[in-house]
């Protein structure tokens, strides 16, 4: 039972780290754009298929494929920002939500049309297992652990120490205040989309690798987990998202531990996450760590 607990903790840490990284991007974007981006999940889908193309069709390693997918997804997010979301800013919350819903449908179905609805997998040995005595890792999990272990501290340092990172946090926290302090809000907005797209790209490839198999619904299935992360961490607060993603990933996996009175059945994990999201929105829309204020 302890072994199961450890295994679940590691699984949860991996899921959590991926949610944390994608959540940082989504949270910054939410803070800057002031709109829930319902298409964010499709950025992950797009990345997973770019990764598939690089990994399977062009025979690149999974790491190279991840970097490629991050780059292209970052550019996609930036392109959509300039072509669609920025010109339409100020249309109102509901109008913007519907626009991103439509955008998400378009992206998802382009992937469906181009790549087909079949279930896909990367060129990694799905049956291989790294047995580390206490826990076992699939190759996908091992790569995800390695990549997130490198990127998560990097992102945290970037946001804490660099001028650009600080500006991003400032704009996401309070756009007007950042603007009158001399931050070029438009320029920072573009960088934020680039970063959010790149992190979504990383998340997309890694989620696909960890799951083993995926189809074009991958991103939409993760979207609400990302939303939960963003709200849990406090909208516009990237550190909050880092912590919240990790907590959410661990909580979802550990809820299935048998030590908890037999544990929750795995199939109810999404229901648990959705319920948490709704309760959070109702009771603490400012997030676990945020200050209460008019949002």
């Amino acid at each position: 039972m302890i072994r199961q607990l450890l295994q679940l903790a590691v699984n949860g840490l991996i899921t959590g780290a991926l949610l944390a990284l994608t959540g940082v991007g989504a949270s910054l974007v939410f803070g800057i754009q002031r709109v829930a981006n319902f298409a964010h999940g499709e950025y992950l889908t797009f990345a997973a298929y770019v990764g598939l193309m690089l990994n399977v069709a062009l025979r690149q390693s999974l790491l190279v494929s991840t970097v490629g997918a991050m780059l292209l997804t970052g550019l996609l997010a930036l392109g959509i920002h300039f072509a669609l979301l920025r010109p339409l800013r100020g249309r109102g919350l509901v109008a913007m939500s519907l626009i991103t819903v439509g955008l998400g449908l378009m992206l998802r179905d382009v992937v469906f049309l181009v790549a087909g609805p079949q279930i896909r997998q990367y060129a990694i040995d799905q049956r291989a297992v790294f047995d580390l005595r206490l826990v076992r890792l699939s190759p996908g999990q091992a790569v995800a652990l390695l990549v997130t272990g490198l990127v998560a501290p990097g992102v945290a340092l970037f946001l804490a120490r660099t001028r650009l990172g600080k500006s991003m946090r400032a704009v996401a926290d309070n756009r007007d205040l950042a603007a009158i302090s001399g931050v070029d809000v438009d320029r920072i907005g573009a960088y934020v989309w680039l970063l959010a797209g790149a992190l979504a790209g990383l998340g997309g490839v890694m989620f696909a690798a960890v799951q083993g198999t995926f189809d074009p619904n991958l991103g939409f299935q993760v979207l609400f987990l990302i939303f939960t992360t963003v709200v849990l961490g406090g909208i516009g607060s990237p550190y909050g998202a880092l912590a919240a993603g990790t907590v959410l990933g661990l909580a979802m996996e550990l809820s299935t531990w048998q030590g908890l009175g037999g544990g929750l059945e795995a199939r109810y994990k999404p229901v648990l996450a959705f319920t948490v999201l709704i309760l959070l929105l109702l009771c603490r829309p400012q997030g676990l760590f945020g200050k209460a204020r008019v949002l």
Partner: protein
Amino acid sequence: MDVLNPAFWTFVGVIAGIYAILSLGLYVQFSLAGLPNFGHVAFMAVAAYTMAIGVTRYALPMATAATLGVIAAIALGLVLGVPALRLRADYLAIATVAGGEIVRYLALNLPDVTGGPLGSIGLLGPGQIATYNEPWQRLLDRLSTALQVPLGTAPTRDLAMALLVWTLAGALLALFRGLERSPWGRVLRGIREDEVAVTAVGKNVVAFKLQALVLGAILGALAGLLLAWQIGVFSPDDYQPTLTFYAYLILILGGMNRLWAIPVGAVAFSLLYSGTRFLNFFPLSLIDSGSRAFLRLFLVGFLLVLFMAVRPQGLLGNRRELLLEK
């Protein structure tokens, strides 16, 4: 398939009428009361499941089971009241999609109650095929016989259904047209524009919002029941969030704030949606028929973006009365 096949177009007409009723429910909640419900499809799901379970498992009469379905949807509408009264518009949108997805996941994962991924066929457990719409088909047959005298020939079942659905849709549209122009409708639109002002003149904002939610739930439930009866079988996959967005597209196509434009939007959407199956000429013939479903969904997304970006007043509306600034 032949483009001029009347049976096919009758079927499309039935679906358009059902979508008109569904969108009318969304109109009451969103266009009148300003509550962006992105989980409208849950009302359809709850009503259809309650009705089908009542008919198959407890052998209830169809009317009783259908009434229970509507009551279940009303209960869901009241539950929805809790977030709707407290949340900012975009948070409400997220919460309602999540709520709709909870309903769908529960339907998928409680096979003892809902038949699981099999859907309505599996309601009596494995090994037995459950059907719930025989009483409805008998009703349509009786209607068809009754219509033989005025029409000359007996209409097909689908044609009878189309007449029934559109009569109902027309009556409901007229009813809500009246409600919209009544003092009740004016209060709702006032709430949409400025809640504080309406409170200040002594109206109970909470009660009005709940009424809008419940009326929308009833209309959604009716659409869910009619669709379930028309198709004859359903599964959790039929209640994907995209269905709610079809209803939004119908509202937008016709013009957000015009009630009489809903049937126009519903027909336009249905023509577009079913019409894409005839896009089999070059170069679209390169896409196989299975993939054309995705082309269709792509078009739905494209039109949502296009209309919201370029013509938020819809095909027929004018720009003056728009709630989109909130």
